């Protein structure tokens, strides 16, 4: 029995190795890719015999995609890359970093944990000049620098995180067919969006589908709404102050942002099923209202991952499309974009590891995943033609057009708030508790932490 298992394991390893070497779907020099950046990188580095150990939260299908990206690093440098994905990455990386057996690189799903490890002195800063590079080459570059900059155990700040693979949240999904039939135009500003909302009600329709249900995490979609509204009513500095709790949660500005969400969600005429349905409709079922005939609702604000939950056979671009969740014309805050994303940080430095970081700065390393789908990047040097489909391309455009990029605030807040009190508070708000009272409750919980 044991021998059989050992044999199977060896076979799997062998297959993996064979796969990494022999399976490169994009031939060097062909297609819309920036092969020049690949060649320049390959000429610069020879790392034969060296290994880069990487762990991350990407498993299954995503692991296959990232392995393909890494295989090009292998063929360019002669080094070996061992990537292992784990569903319990968050626990694993903490344990291995503390016990001194960390891999070379870790791909963190969000900055919170990376900042924690940096503050314990367990991360190594990115190579010299990385901060300047990110500021220069990423859209809304300084936002990405700030998101990757943490203090170490000595309190010294440095850039630790290089973002790779981003999600956009500021999207409103709609049915082009329903819009055409009723003759609605895509709103360019928040004022127009509110007008459109009223117009749909006048025409006897229901404008929005909103669902906060998510089992034990019920409430999280509302936190995205509030974050969007913070970015659209207050300055980015205020947003940052709110994330760090320099601005209290029960500050009038935050309460106002909550009520902006309430403007849509608490109005029975605006939401499919009335405001009572908001709190308990599952976020995965919520968008289906767009696809019924006649439409149960016309718009649904949700992040770029939501197409995974659309009904079987939904055609992006035909049955469903999206537009940027617009900003107020009157407030002059530019085009803020809310998102989330994964970042690479060095947990165990080596020459080959630095080379990998340099590789992840090349346009080709982004394009190789863009072409496989499920990948967005703020990298300005990439060729948008390499995106797998038009829908992703348009989302990439939104990222590149961002004047301000801000990260999901609830992901950056302490878990007790961002994955606890904020969620339940928003459920209370949508079921009738006044915003001021909810905000005070969340702030009290935050005070208890400090």
């Amino acid at each position, binding site marked *: 029995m044991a021998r059989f298992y050992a044999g199977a394991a060896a076979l799997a390893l062998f297959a993996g190795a064979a796969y990494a070497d022999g399976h490169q779907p994009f031939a060097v020099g062909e297609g819309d890719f920036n092969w020049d950046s690949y060649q320049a990188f390959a000429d610069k580095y020879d790392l034969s015999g060296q290994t880069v150990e990487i762990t991350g939260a990407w498993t299954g299908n995503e692991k296959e995609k990232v392995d393909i990206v890494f295989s090009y690093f292998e063929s360019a440098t002669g080094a070996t890359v061992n990537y292992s994905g784990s569903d319990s990455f968050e626990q694993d990386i903490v344990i291995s970093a503390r016990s001194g057996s960390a891999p070379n690189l870790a791909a963190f799903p969000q900055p919170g944990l990376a900042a924690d490890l940096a503050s314990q002195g367990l991360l190594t800063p990115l190579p010299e000049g990385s901060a300047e590079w990110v500021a220069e080459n990423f859209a809304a570059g300084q936002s990405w620098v700030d998101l990757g900059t943490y203090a170490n155990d000595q309190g010294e700040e440095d850039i630790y995180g290089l973002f790779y693979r981003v999600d956009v949240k500021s999207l409103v999904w709609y049915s082009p067919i329903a819009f055409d039939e009723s003759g609605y135009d895509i709103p360019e500003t928040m004022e127009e969006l509110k007008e459109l909302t009223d117009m749909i009600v006048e025409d006897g329709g229901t404008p929005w589908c909103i669902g906060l249900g998510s089992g034990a995490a019920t409430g999280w979609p509302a936190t995205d709404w509030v974050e969007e509204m913070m970015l659209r009513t207050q300055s980015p500095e205020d947003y940052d102050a709110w994330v760090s709790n320099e601005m209290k949660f029960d500050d009038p500005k935050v309460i106002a942002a909550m009520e902006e969400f309430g403007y849509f969600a608490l109005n029975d005429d605006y939401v499919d099923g009335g405001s009572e349905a908001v709190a308990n409709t599952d976020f995965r079922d919520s968008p289906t209202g767009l696809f019924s005939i006649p439409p149960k609702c016309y718009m649904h604000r949700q992040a770029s991952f939501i197409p995974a939950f659309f009904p079987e056979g939904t055609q992006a671009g035909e049955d469903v499309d999206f537009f940027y969740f617009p900003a107020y014309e009157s407030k002059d805050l530019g085009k803020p974009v809310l998102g989330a994303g994964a970042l690479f940080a060095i947990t165990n430095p080596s020459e080959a590891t630095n080379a990998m970081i340099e590789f992840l700065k090349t346009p080709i390393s982004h394009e190789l995943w863009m072409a496989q789908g499920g990948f967005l990047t703020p990298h300005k040097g990439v060729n948008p033609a390499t995106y797998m489909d038009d829908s992703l391309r348009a989302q990439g455009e939104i990222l590149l057009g961002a004047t301000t990029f801000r990260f999901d605030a609830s992901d950056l807040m302490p*878990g007790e708030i961002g994955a606890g009190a904020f*969620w339940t508070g928003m*459920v209370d708000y949508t079921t009738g508790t006044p915003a001021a009272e909810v905000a005070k409750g969340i702030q009290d919980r935050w005070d208890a932490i400090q």
Partner: protein
Amino acid sequence: MSPLVQGMLTIFIGVGGCVGYFYLSNLILDKVIFPARGDNPGININRANLVRPWLFLFPAMAALGLYLVYPVVGSFWRSLYNRSGDEFIGFGNYAVMFSDDGFQVALFNNFLWVLIVPAGATFLGLLVAQLTDRLKWGNIAKSLIFMPMAISFVGASLIWKFVYANNADIGLINALRDFFGAEEPLDVLQVRFWNNFFLMVILIWIQTGFAMVILSAALRGIPEETVEAAIIDGANPFQVFFKIKVPQIMGTIVVVWTTITILVLKVFDIVYTMTGGNFGTEILPSYMMSYMFRDDGRATAVAFVIMIIVLPVMIWNIRQARAEMR
């Protein structure tokens, strides 16, 4: 090593270790420490017999100490410290907790749960046990009622989520309301205060089978003569049931009741799955969960309060169960 081999090895080492421990320790006691030879064999045999029970009790005591007493004392100690566990704050966690609205709601809801669920499950179980006793197809009925016992709390919650669904096409309750001409579907889980009862129904549904099986066995154990005598004396069926049968199985009823009560004080999965503690449905275990791994001082304080509440019920349960055995 494959899991199968690991499992076999574990069983072998576990069982072998137990047998080995008892055999060897006994051997050492009799042959080495107090051998029945030498100067005073009689005294040695007596001494060995004094030590022997403790020798045999030691593994159980050690395991209980390690896995029960130590965690209880340790949790209590932890609950006297602040959230990060580096500052002694006495009963600060308890003081803050008792003044917290969320805790008061959870405590009140838990009180309702303890009041209603054990009573409901025991009463229904007794009813079913009595009614199916003489039926030809009673066993089939019993099996059907017992079945929910096999479903996990989370699974049962998901089933009931459909019953309560906010949609007349899916939800049973809303389908009925629709039939009687209600305009809009109603999300029953959001009806404050009453939603607690909708969650309790789930646990009653699961636990009725358990109560039924135990009480059914107890009813069978009642001597026929007492029932016959009552009938000859002209007692009607209700009098037979309440005045003759129930008093005789009172001990069993109490055991069932307290067992379910203890379970109620541990259950958090139903609330967690159905409402996530929203809409005023928080109970103590789910309230504890919301602090766990974040503010361990607070969480252990809640855990300790739960334990204090469970303790008298538990003692009563054990005493009754013992009385039953005699």
